[in-house]
């Protein structure tokens, strides 16, 4: 491996033996069995693959983002500083302006127009779209033993933020795309760390006839899984760490760890460039996943999912990005089996 | 037979020595009166006996056995009960609940309300007390509350009963009733310790008098029948005292304060019913009456603390309306009935308390709302000197002063503003003889300088000694107006309890 010698000299005393990078986690912090943990996993993978080392910080509030980024930048030790959550955009832009020679990376959000920021993200709806399609099929398909005759699904969201609404929109669009009459119950928990409320909401969804509930809710997701266990229905999580082998219909995967690995790889290869990279279903970064699950998805269903994935990759199908757009989108886009 | 002996009791509070090696004994079937000025240590001695505070040194013997009372419950178990100087009642509880709490009937964990109620009713009828067992205490008059306190003690079947100033809030008639009860209890074999500042009462009820002064035992075997009240008070104070002698007004002037059609409504009931009266310059008008007959409401109306239903108040012909600050500004001074809760801020300094209520006057406060600290401290020093307030400095907290000196702060504050009229309520309640004498003199001086004084007091002797004219208040109405000496104490007592017919009949017979 060769180091990116050009920028090395400019920014001073960088670790000569290997790449050193820093990660600024989201306010939720590690241990969420979700996004933050997956980024951490990516950092470890990158460290191992490229012999890199990394430091990280778990900020406690919004005001701390800027301080931590500055401190990382100030030390001049890092080849790249990675900010991982949407709330950090403001801080990142401010700091990036003050340290033009320092490379930054923004994950999961598009930031453009800076010479020292590279952003890698997936389109919000992509993560859950294919799972939505699968759920839309499964709820009406007798080959899925835990589903019921009713045509109802559920989606629980931690906080009512634009990002979360975009993610939910992906799931709902997926389900309606294949099953236009499906009803999708959506609920907001109000916290990333309140599994008890999450469980209660999921229980009510199941009681109201939903047979598959998907969750994108940080640590609160645990509650949805527990509700699925109690009701013996399907559940869809967002992380490899968050599965119930007998009841997880799929995992709505966004392979954020790949973002980190790619980023470090580009540094390692000297191909790092500012700008933005958007990845998603076409690149295989977002997908439904069944690793470690005991549920058999019939081949014809897999074929449909593959077909839809191709359509998206071709650009035949573009996805809606907010809950408000769904109805209109669904009336225009329908999949005919 | 000796039932209690306290030996060489000392109590040191941070900053004060409350008791210095006091010995005290109590015999069976005996009523002992404990005398002493404010701060002499009477309450402290009794609190030690009752297990509420630990003595710094000394020993207590109960029937010859040495005992250590760590908590009141230890004393209660030995049959020692105490009625406190300040009421120890729960306003939100009923009379029954207040009486039984802590010594409920029955042996299981559940509360037997029926049995408790029956026991209390029996007790009430046995001692001919007039209290509703199911009434909430917050609705009771002060006298009734006092009776509940005594019922609490009786309910606990105490052998030794300690009463700390039980008569301060009672009418003469109620005092008689109380004393009758005490005598009956004595006949039943109980021993009683009573603390009072009224020497007349001491002479009437006590078998033996014990005198404390400044934490020292002065004499523990005075026979009340063999000493005069003058001698008793000199024992307490340590020097000669001039007892209240009437000093009638020299020249009564024009009408100063005129109150017409005063009606006050509270909780939908008329507490003061269309009362009118006038006070002249240089006159003390006394209002006698049992507490709870509308005194508080009259005071509040005349000081602007409460909006009466109707009232026309004029001061030297000018009408006064508005808030209490307007009344103060108009020249109506106010010595409130409870010095600590209404008249003073005990956490603040003597100096700060000496301008309370007058702090917005231009003497103490600039137009921009700044306090003129230099003027204020000079003023406070002057008052401290003029009114003989005993305090370490004007910067000491009021809480560090004795009751009498606390009262002096209020007196100095109000009197030195030369009010045209002044409302004075219970000015000497709980104040010792020395300070009482001083306050009375100040009142008379103020009157002689031309102020109109409205004196409201539950102490009939005080009203009779100071007033130039006396009204009797009963259930919110003025039932009698008389000149001092016109009516006997008994007659006034009857009027105060609603017996005006009898008085009038008596007069007609004369």
């Amino acid at each position, binding site marked *: 491996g060769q180091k990116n010698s050009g920028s090395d000299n400019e920014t001073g005393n960088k670790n000569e033996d290997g790449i050193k990078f820093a990660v600024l986690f989201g306010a939720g912090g590690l241990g969420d069995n979700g996004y933050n943990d997956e980024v951490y996993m990516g950092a470890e993978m990158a460290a191992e693959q490229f012999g890199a080392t990394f430091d990280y910080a778990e900020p406690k509030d919004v005001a701390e983002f800027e301080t931590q980024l500055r401190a990382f930048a100030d030390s001049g030790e890092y080849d790249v500083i990675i900010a991982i959550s949407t709330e950090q955009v403001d801080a990142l832009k401010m700091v990036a302006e003050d340290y033009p020679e320092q490379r930054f990376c923004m994950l999961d959000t598009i930031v453009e127009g800076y010479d020292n920021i590279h952003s890698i993200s997936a389109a919000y709806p992509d993560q859950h779209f294919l799972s939505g399609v699968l759920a839309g099929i499964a709820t009406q398909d007798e080959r899925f033993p835990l589903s019921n005759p009713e045509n109802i699904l559920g989606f629980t969201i931690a906080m009512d933020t634009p990002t979360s609404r975009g993610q939910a929109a992906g799931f709902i669009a997926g389900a309606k795309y294949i099953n236009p009459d499906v009803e999708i*119950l959506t609920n907001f928990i109000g916290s990333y760390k309140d*599994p008890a409320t999450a469980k209660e909401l999921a229980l009510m969804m199941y009681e109201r006839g939903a047979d598959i509930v998907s969750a994108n809710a940080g640590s609160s997701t645990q509650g949805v899984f*527990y509700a699925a266990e109690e009701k013996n229905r399907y559940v869809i999580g967002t992380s490899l760490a968050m599965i119930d082998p007998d009841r997880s219909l799929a995992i709505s995967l966004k392979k954020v760890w790949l973002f980190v690995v790619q980023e470090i790889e580009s540094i390692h290869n000297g191909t790092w460039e500012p700008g933005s990279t958007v990845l998603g279903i076409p690149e295989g970064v977002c997908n439904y996943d069944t690793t470690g699950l005991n549920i058999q998805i019939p081949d014809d269903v897999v074929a449909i999912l593959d077909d839809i994935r191709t359509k998206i990759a071709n650009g035949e199908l573009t996805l809606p990005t907010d809950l408000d757009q769904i109805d209109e989108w669904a009336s225009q886009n329908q999949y005919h089996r | 037979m000796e039932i209690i002996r306290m030996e060489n009791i000392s109590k040191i509070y941070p900053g004060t020595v409350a008791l210095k090696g006091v010995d005290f004994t109590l015999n069976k079937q005996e009523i002992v009166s404990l005398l002493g000025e404010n701060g002499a240590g009477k309450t402290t001695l009794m609190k030690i006996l009752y297990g509420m505070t630990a003595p710094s040194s000394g020993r207590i013997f109960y029937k010859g056995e040495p005992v250590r009372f760590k908590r009141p419950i230890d004393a209660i178990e030995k049959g020692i009960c105490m009625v406190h100087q300040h009421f*120890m009642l729960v306003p939100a509880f009923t009379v029954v609940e207040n009486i039984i*709490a802590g*010594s409920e009937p029955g042996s299981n964990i559940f509360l037997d309300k029926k049995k408790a109620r029956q026991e209390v009713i029996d007790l009430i009828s046995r001692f001919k007390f007039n209290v509703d067992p199911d009434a909430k205490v917050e609705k009771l008059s002060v006298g009734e509350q006092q009776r509940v306190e005594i019922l609490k003690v009786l309910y606990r079947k105490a052998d030794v009963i300690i009463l700390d100033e039980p008569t301060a809030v009672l009418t003469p008639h109620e005092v008689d009733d109380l004393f009758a009860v005490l005598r009956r209890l004595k006949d039943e074999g109980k021993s009683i310790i009573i603390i009072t500042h009224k020497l007349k009462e001491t002479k009437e009820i006590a078998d033996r008098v014990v005198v404390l002064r400044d934490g020292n035992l002065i004499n523990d075997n005075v026979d009340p029948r063999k000493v005069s009240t003058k001698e008793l008070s000199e024992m307490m104070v340590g020097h000669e005292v001039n007892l209240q002698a009437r000093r009638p007004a020299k020249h009564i002037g024009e009408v100063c304060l005129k109150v017409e059609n005063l009606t006050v409504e509270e909780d939908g009931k008329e507490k003061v019913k269309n009362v009118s009266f006038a006070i002249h310059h240089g006159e003390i008008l006394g209002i006698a009456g049992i507490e709870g007959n509308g005194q508080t409401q009259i005071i509040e109306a005349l000081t602007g603390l409460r909006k009466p239903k109707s009232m026309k108040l004029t001061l030297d012909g000018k009408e006064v309306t508005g808030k209490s600050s307007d009344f103060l500004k108009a020249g109506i001074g106010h010595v409130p009935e409870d010095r600590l809760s209404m008249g003073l801020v005990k956490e603040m300094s003597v100096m700060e308390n000496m301008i309370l209520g007058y702090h917005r006057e231009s003497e103490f406060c600039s137009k921009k709302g700044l306090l003129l600290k230099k003027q204020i401290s000079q003023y406070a020093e002057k008052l401290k000197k003029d009114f003989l307030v005993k305090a370490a400095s004007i910067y000491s907290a009021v809480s560090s002063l004795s009751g009498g000196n606390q009262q002096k702060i209020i007196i100095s504050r109000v009197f030195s503003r030369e009010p045209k009229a002044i409302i004075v309520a219970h000015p000497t309640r709980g104040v010792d003889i020395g300070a009482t004498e001083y306050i009375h003199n100040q009142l008379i001086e103020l009157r002689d300088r031309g102020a109109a004084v409205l004196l409201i007091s539950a102490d009939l002797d005080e009203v009779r000694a100071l007033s130039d004219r006396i009204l009797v208040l009963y259930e919110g109405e003025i039932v009698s107006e008389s000149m001092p000496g016109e009516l006997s104490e008994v007659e006034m007592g009857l009027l105060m309890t609603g017996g005006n017919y009898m008085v009038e009949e008596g007069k007609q017979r004369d």
Partner: protein
Amino acid sequence: MTFNAEVLYSIVASTLRSSVPLILAALGGCFSVRAGVSDLGLEGMMLAGSFFSVLGSYITGNAWLGLLFGMLFGAVFSMLHAVMHITYRVNASISGMCVNLLATAATPLLLNEIFGMSGKSPIVEAFKKPDWQWMNNIPVVGRILGAQNVLFFVAILLVIVSWIFMYKTKIGLRMRMVSENPHAASTVGLNVTAYKYFGVAMSGCLAGFAGAYLSIGQMNLFVEEMTAGRGYIAVVINAFGKYNPLGVFGGSIFFGFFDALQTIFQNIFPSQLVMMTPYVFTLLVIALGLGGSRGPAGVGKHVDN
């Protein structure tokens, strides 16, 4: 949105389930206030209960023992409040906040120290929802009660027992006397300090129970800050219910009901506004003068010796 009997059943069942932790914590608040100590520390005691019940269940493998552990440590945390306020005369709002701060700091730390995990604990043995088939035969009520956890019934029992304790027993009367007028209580020979400690310890136990209900009753693990402000809501409910176990029960059901209703209204109105409504309603009730009594007269007062 179809609005049928199913939905109705589900709302009622959910109301009961989500009111349980509120009932328990606010009941704890009752004991505290009715012994004369303000109850601002419920949140912290509850969080401690959540964590330690999980730890207890983890160690023993038994949910009941876990619950016991949770209650015990709820009480242990309440003792910080008790010692500061009762013995050292600190303002109760401050000592209460101390408990909250301590629990928020200590639980993640212990999570890290004991389980080596951050954010949440491993999954432990929890109270399973009992399978009461026979209940389903009882019309209406059976379906709703059948959807409840055993702890729900324990909570109801505790409400009744607490009410009897406070209003029908001698100790209850004495404890209330302490809260109304500690001086009076001490003069009739009651050990005011002991009663206050007892009330606070009970509040710790019950808040610990409430926390345990969240972590091993509703759920099967601990998540940092999982009480999510329920302790503060319990403080509100306690005042709303006039510091009476029955009132507290009613107030908790009220809040639980709003929680359950949210699931339906969130799809119609912005979620934040829906979540805001129970507070607006409570505030209105207080503004109309129907609730929010000042409580026992002697709360926060001390007796000198």
